[in-house]
């Protein structure tokens, strides 16, 4: 179903103005027109009646003294009256005495206009027919009736007058319409423009997220109130935004401080555990020592895990503070990948997972070795964690400018809705507890982006995920790629 096109305030104002103006004007014009047309009709009938009365009066003597010639002369005088079509005088018995037909009437239509006999009339009458006015007027003098005059006048002049009149009314209506449009334009200036300018301010704020902009106040009316409310809202949003930023900064600061504070005793602890393990390694072992060694190994693993978590938190706080720096140097990506896979070997053996590494002999480039190792470790660790025990494929490829690392697992996969947020802080695709803080992919992405590269994921729920990292091979490419983004 398609929605109706929205109607602008301007159009609404125009429509309102036109309706408000034209309705009373239209009603008034209709009333005036009806009355005037009635008056014009009455006027025409009256003027025809007057002609009839004059002709009847003037013909009385001629009829009294049986003077056809004079009666005809009188009727022929009607030729000057353009609207008279015909006239006829009948004696008191209704028999035709003399008649006149206007020369403007076509010859073939003339005979039909004159009746040979009529019913004599004692009182005058005027009838508006479809195409003429019919007048019947008794011919009287000094109280004696000598006959009847039948007069027929055309209503063409009447129609012409009414047509002209309607034209004038039409022009008046047009004038009113123009006036209402002018009025609408004036209203638009007063009402619509401040609203539109307010809308523009709102749009600008929405686009640039600049809450310091303020809407102009056009005056103390409702739109002024709206502008004030809008500006107040902007102040409130600005205030809350700065509050939110402050809260985030406090959190990040806390994260940074906490991570550092945790790191220091943990490092000491780690060194002590490692020292104990090494010291016990060369001695013959009584059973209780064996037991201590096992405990120490557990402690060492947990300390390593804690160390990694704290290192991640430190990275996040560095990223948040914008203090995430790189130390690039020339390295062989393939050698590094073999080393990282090798580091995972005890865990792979324990979980009975194989990693298939396919790579050329060398891929040399300039990257920060510790950070790139961190990315590889993160991706392979995720693949082991979410790979459901299936084989993990690690592929390395390169062309002249770019190196590509692909890590594919055949595990639980990621739902399409989650694909976008897995690279965010503290986000994970799965709700079940797989361990970790959900920071690995966030940090990896920051590292790749800092190198001018890209990281993306292709996944199908239940069929596994493929993470693809592309890195510019040299510093030059990295800079240009970074500039490009």
């Amino acid at each position, binding site marked *: 179903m398609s929605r109706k096109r929205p109607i602008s305030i301007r159009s609404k104002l125009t429509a309102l103005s036109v309706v408000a103006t034209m309705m009373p004007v239209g009603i008034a014009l209709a009333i005036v027109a009806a009355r005037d047309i009635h008056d014009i009709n009455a006027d025409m009938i009256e003027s025809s009646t007057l002609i009839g009365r004059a002709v009847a009066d*003037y013909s*009385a*003597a*001629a009829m*009294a*003294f*049986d*003077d*056809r010639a*004079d009666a005809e002369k009188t009727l022929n005088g009607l030729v000057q009256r353009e609207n008279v079509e015909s006239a006829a005088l009948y*004696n*008191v*018995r209704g*028999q035709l005495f003399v008649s006149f037909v206007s020369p403007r009437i076509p010859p073939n239509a003339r005979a039909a206009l004159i009746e040979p006999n009529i019913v004599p009339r004692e009182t005058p009458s005027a009838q508006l027919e479809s195409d003429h006015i019919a007048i019947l007027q008794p011919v009287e*003098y*000094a109280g*004696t009736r000598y006959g009847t005059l039948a007069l027929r006048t055309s209503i063409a002049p009447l129609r012409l007058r009414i047509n002209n009149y309607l034209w004038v009314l039409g022009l008046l209506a047009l004038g009113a319409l123009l006036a209402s449009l002018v009025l609408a334009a004036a209203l638009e200036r007063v009402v619509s423009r401040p609203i539109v300018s307010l809308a523009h301010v709102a749009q600008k704020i929405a686009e640039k997220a600049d809450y310091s902009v303020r809407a102009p106040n056009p005056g103390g009316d409702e739109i002024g109130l709206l502008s004030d409310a809008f500006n107040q809202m902007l102040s409130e949003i600005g205030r809350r935004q700065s509050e939110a930023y402050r809260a985030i900064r406090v959190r990040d600061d806390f994260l940074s401080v906490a991570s550092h504070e945790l790191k220091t005793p943990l490092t000491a602890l780690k060194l002590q555990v490692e020292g104990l393990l090494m010291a016990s390694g060369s001695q013959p072992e009584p059973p209780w020592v064996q037991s201590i060694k096992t405990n120490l190994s557990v402690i060492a693993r947990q300390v390593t895990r804690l160390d990694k978590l704290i290192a991640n938190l430190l990275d996040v706080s560095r990223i948040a503070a914008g203090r995430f720096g790189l130390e690039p140097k020339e390295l062989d990506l393939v050698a590094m990948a073999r080393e990282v896979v090798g580091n995972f070997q005890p865990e792979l053996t324990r979980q009975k997972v194989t990693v298939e590494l396919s790579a050329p002999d060398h891929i040399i480039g300039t990257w920060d070795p510790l950070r790139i190792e961190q990315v590889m470790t993160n991706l392979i660790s995720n693949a082991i964690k979410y790979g459901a025990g299936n084989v993990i494929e690690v592929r390395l490829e390169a062309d002249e400018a770019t190196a590509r690392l692909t890590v594919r697992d055949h595990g639980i996969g990621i739902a399409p809705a989650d694909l976008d947020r897995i690279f965010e802080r503290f986000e994970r695709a799965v709700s079940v507890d797989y361990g970790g803080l959900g920071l690995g992919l966030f940090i990896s992405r920051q590292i790749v982006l800092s190198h001018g590269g890209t990281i993306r994921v292709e996944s199908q729920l239940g069929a596994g995920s493929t993470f693809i990292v592309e890195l510019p091979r040299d510093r030059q490419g990295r800079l240009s790629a970074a500039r490009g983004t």
Partner: protein
Amino acid sequence: MRLAEREPRQRRSTLRRVAAALLVLIGLYSGTPLANENDFEYNLKAEFIDRFAAFIEWPAGTFASPDAPFVLCMVGGSPIEPFLRKFELSRRIKEHHMVLRHIGPTNAASGCHLVFIAVDDVHRLQQVLSSTSGKPILTVADRDGYGSLGVLINLYVAEGHVHFEINASETKKSGLKFSSQLLKLARLIGAP
């Protein structure tokens, strides 16, 4: 007097019937000639005399009372008399009943409202006119040339129709007011 006592409505309807009958005769006359053309002509002339009265105003105070008769006098003898006599019974002229009186040429015409002059002798005509001239008395004749001799309205027949001429200068002197319509129909003679 007898007529005056009748109901006005009845009187009017009687008048209407008579007028209608006469107009039938007029209509027929204008169409085909009749056996007795003479009768018809005088009938028509009598009708004209009645109608002249309708188109002429006598000065105010001419009639002493509403009951006073319209006095139609005749000088000499004419075939018109029986027709005028009929009017005496049936017509009202200027809203008054009509009486027909014979007067001699030397008799003072005072008391007459209309004098029909039917004398052949010009001398006698002059006698009559001397008593009517300058007075509101309508003089009517039907002899050729009488109009120019001073008769106010002179009837004549031309092309089978009755016409009349009016002596304009005498008309002015008389104090009678002729309707312009009547003047329009007439042949005007005498200085205007």
